[in-house]
């Protein structure tokens, strides 16, 4: 701006001479900027002349929405024919028949016929026989104080025959099973020949596992008739309770009674039980309250126990594979003639009557179970039990050992044991092994302690379902008479044995097969029942049919 003023002053100097003469400077042109520069001078606006060609466009374009070429009318939409797979057939058989016999006459029969197979209901008629009719080795004590065969034989028999009908009805909330049968147990040895006639009925109704209300009620009635003996046995057991979300609360019970001409005995047990899971633990906590009753003092009278633990604990170390287990249990066992006869068909040679309680005051065990490679299963336990008034097999004699005879007696003792069971299950091979070691504090001058070791195994191999071959073994170490302390008598033995057998089966068709079995291959003196040993090696052949 300064130069503008200077310029203006100069301009005034040049053009304002008259004013200067008047000593005035009346013209100060502050707005005559245009005089020294082009400010304010604007170029004329030129009108744009647009050539016609600029206004012409190439508009040759199809403005219609384009039509697509024919794309086909078919829109793929899968055509679904929903094939239904036929329900799986489990090929439930209607008839099964298996029979056989051979040298060393071991006739056997197993027949099952299912005339009713309707939805949830099944009825089976069955008939079974297993027996031995032939020579037994005469057992006598030798110079080594072993009860062994003396080289002589006698004729005898051991046979179990049964016919019956069982039924099954399962519905969504439970299941009913029932069985009624007649059973004949016949035995003949050097001391007796006895036929037992047993009629039995048993039934059980129980709830399905997932139902909220838990019930399990079983009844059993058995009537045994033997010359000079009639025994009726009644039992009801089971429980009632509630299945909660992850636990179960129930009250188990057992009431049983036996009625013979000599008297009656029975027991009521109540077991409140709580079953639940806590993390990897599975606990089954029960407490058994037992109330035995009896008709006279002949029975095991003085050591009544009323309360027993009934506790089982599992701990899953490796889920679905390895479990630690432990239990503390106990209880009374009502031993009747009928129940003892099931395990020893020659019972009349040992006892003529039997009715008493055996008590397992406490039984503590711990072990492991699980599987290896999901094929082999095992269950190994060790434990301790105290048995009171336990019936064990022994001997008696009239004048000397040479004239000894089978006998039995009751004793109380502690039992320590280790027990291992294992098995293999596959399509080709079924194998089971059971090994047991046990030691007792039993001491008696006429009752034998159980064998220290027993070993049992069975292998059955299957070639394509047509050929089967198996081997089995039942072995036990000797049984020894543990004399009471201070007793100077000699120690008596029942020798150990190994009963080795072979089995073969050939299937002609899917329904029919022939089989052969050879037993006691080692021709050993197998005193599975004391003082009773079959003659020796034997074989049976038979056939099997099913449809």
């Amino acid at each position, binding site marked *: 701006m300064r130069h503008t003023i200077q310029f203006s002053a100069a301009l005034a100097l040049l053009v304002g001479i008259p004013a200067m003469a008047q000593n005035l400077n009346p013209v*100060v042109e502050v707005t005559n900027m245009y005089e020294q520069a082009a400010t304010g001078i604007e*170029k004329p606006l030129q009108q744009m002349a*647009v050539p016609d060609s600029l*206004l012409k466009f190439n508009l040759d374009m199809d403005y219609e929405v384009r039509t697509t070429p024919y794309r086909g009318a078919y*829109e793929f939409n899968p055509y679904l*024919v929903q094939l239904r797979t036929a329900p799986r057939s489990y090929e439930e058989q209607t008839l099964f028949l298996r029979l056989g016999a051979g040298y060393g006459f071991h006739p056997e029969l197993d027949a099952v016929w299912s005339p009713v197979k309707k939805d949830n209901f099944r009825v*089976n008629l069955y008939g079974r026989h297993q027996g031995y009719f032939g020579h037994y080795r005469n057992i006598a004590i030798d110079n080594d104080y072993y009860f062994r065969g003396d080289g002589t034989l006698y004729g005898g028999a051991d046979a179990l025959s049964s016919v019956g009908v069982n039924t099954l009805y399962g519905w969504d909330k439970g299941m009913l099973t029932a069985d009624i049968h007649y059973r004949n147990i016949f035995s003949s040895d050097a001391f007796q020949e006895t036929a037992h006639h047993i009629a039995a009925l048993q039934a059980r109704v129980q709830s399905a596992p997932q139902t909220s209300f838990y019930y399990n009620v079983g009844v059993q009635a058995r009537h045994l008739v033997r010359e000079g003996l009639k025994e009726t046995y009644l039992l009801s057991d089971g429980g009632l309770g509630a299945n909660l979300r992850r636990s179960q609360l129930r009250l188990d019970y057992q009431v049983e009674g036996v009625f013979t001409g000599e008297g009656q005995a029975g027991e009521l047990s109540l077991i409140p039980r709580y079953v639940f899971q806590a993390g990897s633990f599975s606990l089954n906590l029960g407490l058994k309250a037992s109330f035995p009753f009896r008709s006279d003092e002949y029975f095991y009278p003085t050591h009544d126990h009323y309360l027993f633990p009934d506790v089982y604990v599992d701990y899953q170390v490796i889920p679905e*594979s390895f479990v630690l287990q432990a239990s503390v249990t106990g209880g009374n066992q009502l031993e009747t003639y009928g129940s003892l006869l099931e395990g020893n068909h020659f019972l009349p040679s040992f006892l003529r009557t039997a009715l008493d309680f055996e008590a397992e005051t406490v039984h503590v065990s711990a072990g492991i179970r699980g599987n290896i490679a999901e094929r082999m299963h095992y269950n190994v336990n060790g434990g301790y039990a105290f048995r009171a008034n336990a019936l064990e097999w022994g001997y008696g004699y009239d004048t000397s050992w040479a004239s000894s005879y089978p006998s039995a007696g009751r004793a109380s003792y502690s039992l320590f044991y280790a027990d291992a069971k294992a098995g293999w299950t596959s399509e080709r091979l079924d194998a089971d092994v059971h090994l047991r070691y046990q030691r007792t504090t039993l001491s008696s001058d006429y009752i034998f302690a159980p064998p220290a070791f027993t070993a049992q195994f069975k292998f059955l191999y299957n070639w394509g379902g047509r050929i089967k071959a198996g081997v089995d073994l039942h072995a036990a170490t000797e049984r020894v008479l543990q004399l009471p302390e201070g007793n100077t008598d000699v120690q008596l033995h029942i020798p150990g044995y190994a009963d080795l057998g072979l089995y073969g089966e050939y299937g002609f068709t899917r329904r029919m097969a022939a089989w052969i079995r050879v037993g006691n291959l080692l021709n050993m003196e197998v005193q599975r029942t004391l003082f009773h040993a079959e003659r020796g090696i034997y074989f049976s052949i038979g056939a099997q049919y099913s449809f």
Partner: protein
Amino acid sequence: MKRIFVALSAAFLFSSVWAQEWDAGRQYYQKGLYAASIASLEGQHGAMPEGYRALSALALKLDNRQELAEAYLQNWPESVLVPQVSFFQAMDLFDQEDYQRVLLLLSSIKEDQLQKSQIPEYSYKLGYSAYRAGEWQYAAQVLSAVSKLPYSDYTAPSCYTLGYLNYSHERFREAEDWFQKAGGDVRFQDLAKYYILECRFNEKDYAYVVRNGEAMLDAAPQDRKPRLARMISESYLVRGDVDRARAYYDRHLSGTEAKTRADYFYAGEMMYLAQDWEQAADNFEKVCAVPDSLGQMASYQLGYSRIQLKNKVAALEAFHDAAKLDFSPEVKEDAFFNYAKLAFDLGKDTAPFQEYLSRFDTKSRGDQIYSYMAMVALQNHDYEAAVEAYDNLDVLEPAMQSNYMKAYFLRARQLMEMGSWRAAVPHLKTAAYYSPSRDGFNQLSRYWMAEAYYRDGKYGDARGILTDLYNLSALPGQAEGELLPYQIAYTYFKEGNYEQALRWFGIYLGGRHSQYGGDAQTRIGDCYFFRADYPGAIGAYEKKMRDYPDPDDLYPAFRAGVASGLLQDDAAKIRFLEGVKHASPAAPYYSETYYELGRAYVATGAHQEATEAFTTLEKTTKDPSMATLAILELGTIARNQGRDEDALRLYKQVVQGGGDHAEDALLAIESIYRSRQDPDAYLAYVNSLGGDAHRSEEQKEEVYFSTAEQIFLSGDIAKATTTLQAYLERYPRPVYGAKARFYLGECYRASGALEQAADQYQAALEGGLDAALSESALLQYAHLNYTLGNYGKAYGAYLRLQEQARLDENKASAAAGLMRSAFRAKQWEDAIAAAQPLTGAKDAALQREALYVRAKSFFSTSRRAEALSDFQELSRQPSTPEGAEAAYLVIQDLFDRAQFGQIQERVYAFADKAGGQNYWLAKAFIVLGDSFAEQGNTAQAKATFESIRSGYTPSGAEDDVLDQVDVRLRKLQ
């Protein structure tokens, strides 16, 4: 114990001297005696007996089997029987078709946990369950493994399922292979054959279908027959045998029994292919209602059918329906594209196109769309829209380039005509981009680009282009080519490089044509003048006055007079300036010339003439500063003539008026009182002035601004511009800056420099203009932006104005401006909202305009029904521009709906009442011609178009009627 003895006794029967307690249960189970197994396991507990009990229950299918199995798996997870129980539980669930649980259970088992004989069944049922559960990939993987196992009962089912899996995934070749394998099993023979046929069909082996399908058809189950017939029919169709195709259709698919949607769809397709569009559309319409894949396809095909029926409006709806569904991405995309195209065709609604482009990644379609939009815009001479569309193109096809360049050029022209020089530059640059520098269009574009630069004050940029063009001898024979030196000269002139300016003006004047010769000659005089070469200047001005005489062009005379004065040649000065006495007082430089004439008279002692000159000036000038100067001069003359009282009166009049000359007047008054030796009187006078006698800087600024304001108010725009600029330059922090900028804005606006004016208004508003002027500035700012095509800015300004305006008039301007700018900015929703209140305006024209804006906005957003309602109303006034356009659009709508029958009647009715609305009437007749063409009446169509061509006079360069007619006539030839 007693219960175990029972079991043992049974076990002994089975082949060994010893067995586990549960062995009888196992053996009975293995022999299929499941009930016996359960009975034999009675009372036994543990993993194995309970496992066999659960397995037996499953085999017996007891009602509680699942519960038993579940309980077993829960209680004995470590048992080796778990895989078996799980397997058979799964088998049982498979029979119950509970495939999800089967999948879960079988997935928990490994093959090697099962018996070998169970593996095929396990794998098949696992795969099948996966398939039924929807896990198809896994199913395929598992079932493929089954097919590789030794042949079993499950091999064929696996192959079949794999075939179906591939088939349903449209892998027909693989599917056929599997079906071939499955077909070996008699259970799957028929089905496999059918599927193989369908695979072949989908593989487009139509010959196979025709060859094998007929034999298969008779034996096919009833439910399969229509499907089979359709494939055979379509195969014939594809092979070109439409008759046999239709025969199959008629025989098997057009029966009287209830049709499914699929049947209608196929019927639609058949009719479509038989070009029976009505029937096709009827059938497709019956399928569209359900929003599934078939519905989508039907809507899509319906769209095409309606296109063939020329009913674009209905076609748009159909395509839109198809585009809403997601079942087929391809159909969706194409339907959307067609919908968008139709929306654009029918209502210029670009939103669907924009949505299309944002939703589908289709670059090529994007270019196609924008080309199409540009083409339509060009057809309508809407260069703004064309340029907008072209802006979105990345690659320009050579065929498009010519249109593209022209569109940008013409849009630039529009902007320049609006005064948007700055905005025009990029358009011109783009226009020139695709043509070589020697091309006439390129040169013209660049010429105008230079002009735009010049108008924007970028003289160097302008000169660069102009010099280049000059060196190329560009635009020969054209006015622009001739003007190149003139334009170059001006760039130098504006930069003060008078030597170069002088040269280039000289070159221009030496040329053949000198459209602006007078101006160039004047500028030559200016160049001399500003270089202080006054004789040269005088000579140049004299030449201008001689060669281009104009009594009202006082500038050369004024300059020549001043130059003569500077040369102390007062006589010459008087000679040059006396012309002012014959000029109009409104002529530029009238006041300045008179003033200088008066001063020249004073200098020559012609006081009488001088007094007359200053008196005339004082009375005629609208410039108060000039009037003040005239009074001051009159005072000086009175003083010189000894009329001190008159002099004092005149000087005091100047002092009284304030202004920048008051100081001079006060000095003169002091001088008079001194000469009278009457200082008291002088002091009394000074005291009477109070503070006005000695002004502070603030007062001086006020005086300065006041002077400028007075000049502005006098209407001398050029001088006001200069003075206001000087004020703003002199006072960097001006007290009256906002007001000065407002006045400057007014000056620029008056002189046509609209962009600069807008800048000044904006600066004024930002500078804190007082309320009264603010309202006015905002109004002008909004108006200017609207005029310059900055509709978005205009809309914002109108919005502010609407909020701030106190004057009803401005409120009304804001409302109308808001509506117009929203409409022009294509802010359709805003336009509708702004138009709404104005549809009830008292002013009929404004009301009509509002209705028009609302209707067009509805139209542009595809709200067709609402738009047509408004158009119908507007069309009742067909002699108005809006009514005429509305009448045309209503007629066009009939055409778009294929209601050709009504068009002729409507057009003639419109013609009767169209008044002077020839453009829209002509457009309506074009639609009439189109409707004749669509109905196959080519002769009538041609006659209609030719009558338009011969009878129509375009209203201007942007009139597209004849272009439209030419396009149609070309098509008809």
